[in-house]
């Protein structure tokens, strides 16, 4: 008796006729047509999905052992670290995982900026992506509060107090967020609940992100649409294996921190239990917030600073309408390409400034860098889109790939000749 033909196939057909899960997987993960020229910068979406799952799973196991109470939270984490089998592994995977999540998302976003993946018809895909990023930031912030160390407590104090800058309702709003007149048990409990809730929202957003992605398919390094079947290859096996290879490299990187430098991304002060009476010498947010922290501090007025900080993120929502340039990929945009790298450098600079104390010359540099951040979006991008003369992108992906192959073939003998001389 043929097992596959007589048993597997009929069950498959029976289920698929009633609930087409198998056809769905085949359509979206196996046969799914993908541009044949994707480079390794296109690995990060898949890696982000895997990291999200890692965070959710380790998070569930952390929650088994965590107590959201100001008297018990810190000790419950130590109990997990010392007395629960592999508790340290779960916790370090989760804490380093948060930093990995942001490293990946920043690369993923810069990839999109460079290759114009946010442009029509992928505006909603981009906007949902920014929403995911915002949700990630909220989740990460609340998660950092839960171990109830000094930096947890004081970070929470600084960030929640920002809302008091809102005129009229500010103070009431802060009391409402805290669930009292100080940061205490109520605050910790709701942060725990919301921290656990947010990933569900992120998963939902990711679902829409992928839905939008699969409607118009991936962008690619050339930024031209797939036109003929010759432009695409099936997702499986080509990109499943490529994503797996990326996963291997990423896991090696990630787990090196988990096993050999688990506190690298953390702050020593968070191994001191929260104490409302002792303020740490430097209150610094986690590294992934530093650029925005620098923007917040670059304006003396509290309200304006808060507005600037939130604008710095929300300006990303309207990016598709700030950059009206027809050509997507920076490969064919000589001017935009240079400003792109300047922008990357500016983000790193802002991150550096965010970690410094508010003294000269950091204050002035921070102000200039913050001003440049906004100028990039509000002035440079629209102007470049209007006046730049992009190179002509190739007719199709196949044409572009062929051209590149020819070029590298003619270039190689020339290089060898030069070497011989």
């Amino acid at each position, binding site marked *: 008796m043929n097992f596959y033909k007589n048993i597997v196939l009929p069950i498959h057909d029976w289920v698929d006729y009633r609930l087409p899960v198998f056809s769905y997987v085949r359509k979206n993960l196996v046969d799914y047509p993908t541009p044949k020229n994707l*480079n390794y910068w296109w690995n990060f979406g898949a890696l982000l999905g895997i990291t999200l799952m890692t965070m959710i799973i380790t998070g569930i196991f952390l929650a088994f052992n965590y107590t959201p109470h100001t008297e018990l939270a810190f000790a419950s984490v130590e109990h997990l670290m*010392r007395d629960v089998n592999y508790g340290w592994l779960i916790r370090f995977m989760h804490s380093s995982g948060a930093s990995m999540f942001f490293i990946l998302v920043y690369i993923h976003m810069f990839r999109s900026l460079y290759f114009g993946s946010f442009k029509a018809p992928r505006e909603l895909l981009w906007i949902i992506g920014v929403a995911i990023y915002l949700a990630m930031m909220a989740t990460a912030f609340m998660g950092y509060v839960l171990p109830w160390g000094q930096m947890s407590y004081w970070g929470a104090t600084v960030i929640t107090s920002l809302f008091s800058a809102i005129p009229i309702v500010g103070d009431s709003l802060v009391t409402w967020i805290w669930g009292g007149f100080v940061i205490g048990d109520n605050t910790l409990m709701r942060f725990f609940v919301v921290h656990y809730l947010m990933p569900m929202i992120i998963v939902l957003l990711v679902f829409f992100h992928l839905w939008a992605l699969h409607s118009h398919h991936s962008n690619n390094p050339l930024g031209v649409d797939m036109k003929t079947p010759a432009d695409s290859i099936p997702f499986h096996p*080509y990109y499943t*294996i490529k994503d797996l290879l990326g996963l291997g490299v990423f*896991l090696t990187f990630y787990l090196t921190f988990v096993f*050999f430098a688990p506190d690298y991304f953390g702050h020593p002060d968070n*191994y001191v239990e929260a104490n409302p009476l002792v303020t740490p010498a430097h209150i610094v947010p986690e590294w992934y917030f530093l650029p925005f922290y620098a923007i917040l501090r670059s304006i003396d007025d509290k309200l304006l600073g808060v507005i600037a900080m939130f604008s710095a993120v929300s300006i990303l929502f309207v990016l598709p309408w700030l950059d009206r340039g027809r050509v997507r990929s920076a490969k064919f945009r000589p001017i935009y390409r240079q400003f792109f790298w300047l922008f990357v450098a500016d983000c790193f600079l802002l991150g550096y400034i965010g970690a*410094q104390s508010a003294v000269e010359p950091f204050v002035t540099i921070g102000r200039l860098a913050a001003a440049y951040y906004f100028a990039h979006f509000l002035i440079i991008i629209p102007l470049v889109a209007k006046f730049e003369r992009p190179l002509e992108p190739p007719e199709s992906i196949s044409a572009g790939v062929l051209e590149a192959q020819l070029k590298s073939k003619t270039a190689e003998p020339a290089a060898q000749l030069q070497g011989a001389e």
Partner: protein
Amino acid sequence: MNLNTKITLLCSALTLIVLGGLQVKSAYGAEDSVKLEKQDWSFSGIFGTYDRGELKRGYQIYSEVCSSCHSLEYLAYRNLEEIGFSEAEIKEIAAEYEVKDGPDDEGEMYMRPARQSDKFVSPYANEKEARASNNGAYPPDLSLMSKARKNGPDYIYGLLTRYKDEVPEGMEIADGMNYNEVYPGQQIAMVAPLEDETVEYADGTKATLQQHAKDVTTFLTWAASPEMEERKRLGIKVILFLVIWTAMLMALKKKIWAKLH
């Protein structure tokens, strides 16, 4: 671009980001002007383990010196088994302390000798009592100290060895305070706890101040990261597996993509 170039590019991008982080990291403590001397620790590096002799001597220093003021609240007596004490020895150690238990059948709370499963008994009932006994200063819990300071082990070692009798000119030392080069602000309430021959070692190790400081630092680092040896052992296996797995995936990827060209 061939595959190797691409991988190299990817790796260098990741490295850049981490280096960027390192830069930012170094700025966290930029204002702590004192330079800590880097010590050669038995537990540093990916193969590093805690020196068993240092651990045992370090526990001796903790119990004979530090424990009169400093608690170790996240450790239980049973944990001492991990650093080479036998069950009988641990029972004996625990029995020297008393813990409150109860209520008994009459509803009374009572004191009983500590057991292996009990947490280390703190020298003071609470922070108020600790402050009252120490001129208002609060001797902090030491269970996590090695992780709670930047370059924790070097910091603890430096703090213990760098008390100086001569105060730099122009510096006023407040009443009841001591000059210490490493402590933030250079004034510390704790009197220099260790000097040569503070503790007599059973194993014949020469009892210098440096040796004392080194031993107790190793002990406290174990107290803060008791999982470290297991973590590194597992880590080496995991990373070795990942490297081989990734190499295999790379070969497989090459093979699958070769059909395209």
